[in-house]
């Protein structure tokens, strides 16, 4: 009697287990359908995000601070013309020589980004003789592997796409600003017209159609190198970039694992 009861119970468990297993794909399909319904990425039909893994490399030494990338981004993505909203921008770092008698290898650091570098940079006030070195650093969404902004969004309006982009669904964003606070790189802002969070999408509407992001397209010095980790060739510019440079990410201590890689940046760059 006991054994039959036990067998019956076992069969019951097995049956329910199989039932759950069978329901799993259906649940997954339902989740993906809901997700598709609730989020809009702007990708064309037929684009398979699982077949790509986008990344960006920045060769800082090549940047001349012309601001074309910032301008192109503003135009392409209809970003507000105000000097307080940028999906990408350029920072100018100016490191002075140490003062006479100062026991240091480098002096004061000045950083600026007038109008995000869109109009280029005005001549610096610091006399040339006092400058140790100066360089430009283009900034954009860091495409974090563990994106704190997506983690923080209370409704899932910000989400990581399988191909590595981090997008915002403006139709679903409630405009709480938590993602803006959570981004360590200052890459997000509240769109003053739509009152929703906005950020660099890697020009998702372009890259899903086989084009490069606008900032990459217009860069005259090939500072920005755009690549697809899942479709790398031996002579891919990304491969060469990694081979030829010491590669860094910004704020690595935060564990966000950015997929925007910088070559040869100084420790002053944050």
């Amino acid at each position, binding site marked *: 009697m006991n054994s039959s009861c036990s067998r019956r119970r076992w069969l019951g468990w097995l049956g329910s287990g199989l039932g759950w297993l069978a329901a799993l794909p259906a649940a997954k399909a339902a989740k993906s359908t809901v997700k598709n319904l609730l989020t809009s990425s702007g990708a064309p039909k037929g684009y398979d995000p699982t077949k790509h893994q986008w990344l960006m490399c920045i060769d800082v030494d090549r940047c001349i601070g012309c601001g074309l990338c910032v301008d192109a981004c503003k135009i392409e993505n209809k970003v507000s013309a105000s000097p307080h909203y940028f999906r990408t921008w350029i920072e100018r770092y100016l490191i002075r020589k140490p003062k006479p008698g100062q026991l240091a290898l480098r002096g004061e650091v000045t950083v600026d980004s007038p109008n995000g570098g869109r109009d280029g940079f005005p*001549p610096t006030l610091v006399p040339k003789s006092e400058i140790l070195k100066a360089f430009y650093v283009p900034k954009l969404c860091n495409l974090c592997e563990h994106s704190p902004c997506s983690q*923080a969004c209370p409704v899932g309006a910000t989400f990581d796409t399988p191909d590595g982009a981090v997008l915002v669904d403006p139709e679903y964003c*409630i405009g709480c600003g*938590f993602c803006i606070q959570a981004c360590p790189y*200052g890459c997000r802002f509240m769109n003053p017209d739509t009152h929703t969070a906005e950020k660099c999408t890697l020009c998702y509407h372009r890259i899903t159609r086989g084009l490069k992001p606008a900032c990459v397209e217009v860069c005259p010095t090939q500072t920005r190198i755009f690549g697809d980790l899942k479709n790398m060739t031996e002579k891919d510019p990304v491969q060469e970039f990694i081979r030829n440079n010491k590669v860094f990410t910004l704020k690595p201590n935060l564990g966000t694992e950015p997929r925007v890689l910088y070559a040869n940046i100084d420790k002053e760059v944050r």
Partner: protein
Amino acid sequence: MNSFLFLAQLGVETAAPHVEGFAYPNEQHVLWSILIVIYPYITGLVAGAFIMASLVKVFNVRALAPVYRLALLTALAFLICAPMPLLLHLGHPERCLQVMMTPHLSSPMAMFGFVYAWYIMAVLLLELWLEYRHDFVRWGQTEPGLQGALYRLLTLGARDVSPEALKFDEKLSSIVTLIGIPSAFLLHGYVGFIFGSIKANPWWGNVLMPVIFIFSAIVSGIALCVFIYTELNWFRGREVDDECLDEMGKFLFYALLLDFSIEGLDWLHRLYSADESIHVLKQLAAGKLFNTMLVGQLFCGTLIPLLLLGSTQVFRQQIPRFVRRRIYYFSALLIMAGVLLMRWNVVIGGQLFSKSLRGFTTFKFELAGQEGWLVGLTLMVLPYLILWLFLRVFLPAKYDKVGHSQGPLHSAV
């Protein structure tokens, strides 16, 4: 280009005039303003007032029985207003229900709706109903007109006032309070976690943040009860219960001491570990937050009340009653202002420096507008108006002659 040259020749940096040093272009304006300052302040008052009430039920502090109902009603009045600043600050308030319909479970903010609903429905309203049911039945029979009808309605049809039924109410009420304490901790610890979880911001991203928020909430809640209890008695021309006030003063002092110690520990840890953010944080505290943090929060809102309340603990017998009353009242006001400034320093202070750790921006307080003075002031006054209404309906002077409810006395027996 020419304008930049002109600025450069004038010796002005190319940064915007309200930015000192360098800030990322997107972070030159403070995003979270007065409404997000008020939100943790109000929830803190709720949690603190509830914990104050629970001292009577769970910890059997009989001296506090006169403020039991007052504390619960205060908590409810403020809790009703708690979501308002959050709702008003949203870019799309009409989408607010999405937080509950499709919560993103990795976000601490997504939990707000659930924590709030749990706290108001499962804890506060239930506790109040159990506390008041007996009176609702009695008042429903004696009060005429609309007010009587309201009391009868609020019994929800449960009109059994037999000793067994009341005993059951008592038992259930104690259980609800017992659940309520961790819930109050959850309500406000969670608010602290919203800030503490942001690792991008060294001013916020701190494991002690939820603990600091909980203790400052307790302190502000008790201070609020002292303030309202004193005001109510003054307004109704009634003597305050000095034993009760002394007891509240005692709890206020020890809670403030604990709060001060934990915040001190936080600073000690920051200064000792001295990570890369310490320079900018020190500049922040000594510069932009000098008035609100060092003068307002630390000196006026913490050290002076500590000294005043401490004196009542050490020299209680020597200090005349009327002086003690004024000390409690004055300390409570200072503490409430100090905790409000603490919220200001956390919320606004955390946005005044750039995440590049290279500069500061300036906060401009609007008068009107969505996040202006006027809206802020309205939200600060509204809970008091609601409380005034509650006191008229649920703590009417004629039923409040003895100054305490039946419930806590029953439980205390």
